[in-house]
């Protein structure tokens, strides 16, 4: 590498430092026994990518089956397993860990100026727990799979399903501990490890979002663990908990399940909002509009998110008065989400907006989350939910939030911090192409499903009446575009590892602490412990960045 010759007077390093966290030791054991949050994050990155691809293959299978009304590609029993496993892989093994365990793990310590997370061994433990759970889940798939839907509704899951509910349930139970430990680690780290001068209101909003999400992880995940345990107890010992034929209550399961699984939606989307706050502000080179409002709206979403689970039960036989309370609170949650949208939009005003690949994902997130959020109001409105629940409208809505929101934000974040994580730039050209393909393919896949849902097409159907076929063809065609858009980053990002041009410490000249260390960072993140003297998203003189020098370099490139 030509690291030496690139060290400028300003201390700006435009090459790859000869010693960094990636090459300081290279044995397998040095990775598997590492306590470095960055290496753990990289191992998480590889693992969640594997699960994302498995989940994606299931998704492709679903879309192919639904190309025709009859259940012809797959038998209905196989289809039921495929959509169940798509859900389980994507939710428990991709969406929930993705941003927190990869980007959060890598960036939180650097962003607050710490050497590592507060509990590095616990961090490694949570990775091993995740691997154990993931291996068990894959084993469950290989021996025969599970067909209960990712929701495991009783008494089907406890009494009637003769698939491998126990193995997969155990995997989810174990995986919960990984989440809990990660959340705990983040909270302790954010409280105790901030660098001198890094006050709470100088924290990047990415960190605030992770603080909020950690609260949800710690308070919500134990409930789903207990619920899965109760399912296991009933399944094995026939103690009547959920099955009415032995004295249980099936609706009780739904309350317990959604008490976690609704907040889990926020576990999935809040970190995405954190990433997008970074992208919008940094690529507008302007302090984010209404910092405090965005920070506290994350906390508000996390808190209110615990009080709305009953909106999944409007037609389940839940009391209609309870339904009214849940519907009301659901509407209240819309407000902090709206606040975020408006603040992001206002941030662009009088900025200096550039459209690099991460920003394209950031703007794509805003468009898709807008639709995802607004259609949430349709479903939170009780009279309309009676018609829409358990149809493709719901499927479209949560994919707009989960994929249009979280996955897009994750991809944006990966592109944004890729130069920091690997020290190399990817191809900007292919990055932009793939970002646009993902956006177009996504809308083509899922927008028709809103119409299908209103027409009444039920979800989880292997076969459907022929009048729904046209829109399903659109959806499957869109899924192919989306699939190509998602595969492209795998190729050009891997390509960049060897052939990408060195990114330098701060390829975009941004003020965050993560851009004030080398790319990739050294073992303990900073050569000298940083002292923070600037506000969050400070792009002006106060940031201490030598913008003149950077501009000169940009104007006279390729002098190396």
């Amino acid at each position, binding site marked *: 590498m030509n690291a030496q010759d690139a060290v400028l007077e300003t201390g700006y390093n435009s090459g790859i430092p000869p010693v960094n966290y990636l090459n300081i030791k290279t044995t397998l054991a040095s990775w598997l026994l590492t306590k470095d949050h960055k290496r753990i994050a990289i191992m998480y990155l590889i693992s969640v990518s594997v699960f994302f691809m498995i989940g994606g293959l299931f998704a492709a299978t679903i879309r192919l089956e639904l190309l025709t009304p009859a259940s012809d590609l797959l038998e*209905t029993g196989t289809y*039921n397993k495929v959509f169940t496993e798509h859900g389980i892989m994507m939710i428990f093994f991709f969406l929930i860990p993705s941003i927190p365990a990869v980007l959060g793990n890598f960036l939180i310590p650097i962003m607050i100026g710490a050497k590592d997370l507060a509990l590095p061994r616990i961090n490694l433990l949570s990775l091993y727990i995740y691997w154990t759970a993931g291996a068990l889940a894959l084993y469950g798939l290989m021996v025969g799979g599970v067909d209960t839907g990712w929701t495991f*509704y009783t008494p*089907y899951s406890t009494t*009637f399903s003769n698939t491998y509910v126990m193995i997969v349930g155990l995997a989810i139970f174990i995986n919960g501990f990984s989440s809990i430990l990660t959340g705990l680690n983040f909270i302790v780290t954010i409280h105790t490890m901030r660098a001198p001068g890094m006050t709470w209101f100088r924290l990047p909003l990415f960190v605030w979002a992770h603080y909020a999400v950690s609260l949800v992880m710690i308070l919500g995940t134990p409930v789903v663990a207990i619920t899965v345990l109760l399912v296991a107890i009933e399944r094995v010992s026939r103690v009547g908990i959920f099955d*009415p*034929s032995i*004295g249980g*209550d*099936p*609706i009780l399961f739904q309350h317990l399940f959604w008490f976690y699984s609704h907040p889990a939606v926020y576990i999935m989307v809040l970190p995405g909002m954190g990433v997008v706050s970074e992208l919008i502000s940094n690529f*507008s*080179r302007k*302090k984010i*509009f209404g910092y*405090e*409002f965005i920070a506290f709206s994350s906390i508000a979403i996390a808190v209110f998110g615990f009080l709305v689970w009953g909106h999944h039960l409007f*037609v*389940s036989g839940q*009391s209609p008065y*309870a339904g009214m309370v849940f*519907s009301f609170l659901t*509407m*209240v949650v*819309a*407000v902090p989400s*709206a*606040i975020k949208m408006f*603040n992001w939009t206002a941030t*662009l*005003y*009088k900025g*200096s*907006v*550039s459209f690099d690949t991460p920003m394209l994902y950031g*703007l794509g997130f805003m468009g898709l989350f*807008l639709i995802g959020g*607004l259609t949430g*109001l*349709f479903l*939170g*409105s*009780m*009279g*309309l939910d*009676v*018609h829409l629940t*358990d149809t493709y409208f719901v499927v479209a809505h949560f994919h707009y939030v989960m994929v249009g929101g979280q996955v897009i934000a994750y991809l944006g974040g990966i592109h944004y911090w890729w130069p920091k994580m690997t020290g190399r730039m990817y191809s900007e050209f292919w990055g932009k192409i793939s970002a646009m393909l993902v956006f177009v393919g996504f809308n083509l896949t899922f927008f028709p499903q809103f119409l299908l849902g*209103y*027409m*009444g097409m039920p*979800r*989880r159907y*292997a076969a459907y*009446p022929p*009048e729904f076929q046209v829109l399903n063809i659109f959806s499957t065609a869109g899924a192919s575009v989306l699939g190509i858009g998602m595969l492209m980053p795998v190729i050009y990002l891997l390509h960049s590892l060897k052939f990408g041009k060195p990114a330098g410490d701060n390829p975009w000249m941004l003020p965050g602490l993560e851009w004030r260390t080398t790319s990739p960072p050294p073992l303990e993140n900073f050569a000298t412990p940083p002292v923070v003297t600037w506000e969050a998203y400070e792009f002006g003189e106060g940031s201490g960045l030598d*913008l003149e020098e*950077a*501009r000169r370099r*940009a104007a006279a490139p390729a002098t190396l």
Partner: protein
Amino acid sequence: MQTTNWVPLFPEQASTFAWQVDALYFYLVAVSIAFSIPIVLAIFVFGMKYREREKYVSGAEIHGSMVLETTWSIIPFIVSMTIFLGGAIVFFNQMTPPDDAMTVYVVGKQWMWKMQHETGQREINELHVPVNRTIKLTMTTEDVIHDFGLPEFRTKADVVPGRYTYLWFNATKPGKYHLFCQEYCGLNHSGMGGWVYVMEQRDYDNWLSGNASGQTPVEMGKDLFENKLGCASCHAGGPQQRGAKLEGVYGTTVKLTGGGTVLADDNYIRNSILNPASQVVEGYQPIMPTFKGQVTEEQLNALVAYVKSLTPGAATTSAAPASAAPSAASNTMGGNSASGGANSMTPPKADRGKRDAPGSNPNTPSNSNTR
């Protein structure tokens, strides 16, 4: 589905409240557009107007605006409240059948729907109903949770094992409409559906008379009660009887041993047959054996219909009197109304007085609403 759609890709409106759901839908579409257009437009305009002119130039120093933050908190809140209220009003219309409902009993099982009319006719995966009549479905299932979904009528309800849930509609035009199971129920979930045939009254009468009716639910229940199950040996109503008197009990509030009370509705009768010891009427001994496992869901429906028929005001013959006090219970659609005031689907004003009593019951019926 019928092909008289005036909007493409839109389901037909075929029930009395379908237009309300659609109105709510179009209101929400309008709200969505009203919010999306300014935001998307602003993103485009700001993105173009303030795009990067020179590398590394900082944007303007703007940190926020209390006025704007307040505005864009309050406006979405007010709008979301209109959505909430509209949704709640439509929901209570969907949940509250008019008094003159004609009952059809529905039993779901993996993977078929079994219906029985009050007049005795049975159907599988098909339901024939007259147009412009209120149809109330009393539903349960033999195995897992199913959901009786009628998209053209804009309504659906989960069908839950171990309890009764209810659904009502009043079809506005003759035709053939989808019936879907809309709660995932296993292997052949996507095959568990059928059709609802809405017919002119005359055609419906012809259909009824063309189908062997067999016993009506009440007759079948009477037969079970007096002969097959021998309930009458204790419950026939004489002064020396060991079992509680059942005449006139439906829809009243029953005092239980231990001091609680319970509203005698469908779920209460069902529970008293399956779990008799869980709710013992005051003054009686808990000596009744359970009938769990000995009666099918259809037989339970018949027994409930028979017990109901012993109360003149709540008779299951097609038109229940509108205002008779005991009939109030038959008009509620709460799947578990016995467990407390909050669990009825009837709007508060209709019969709030009757709601209070069951709320104080410490021994909530175990079957229908274990907490």
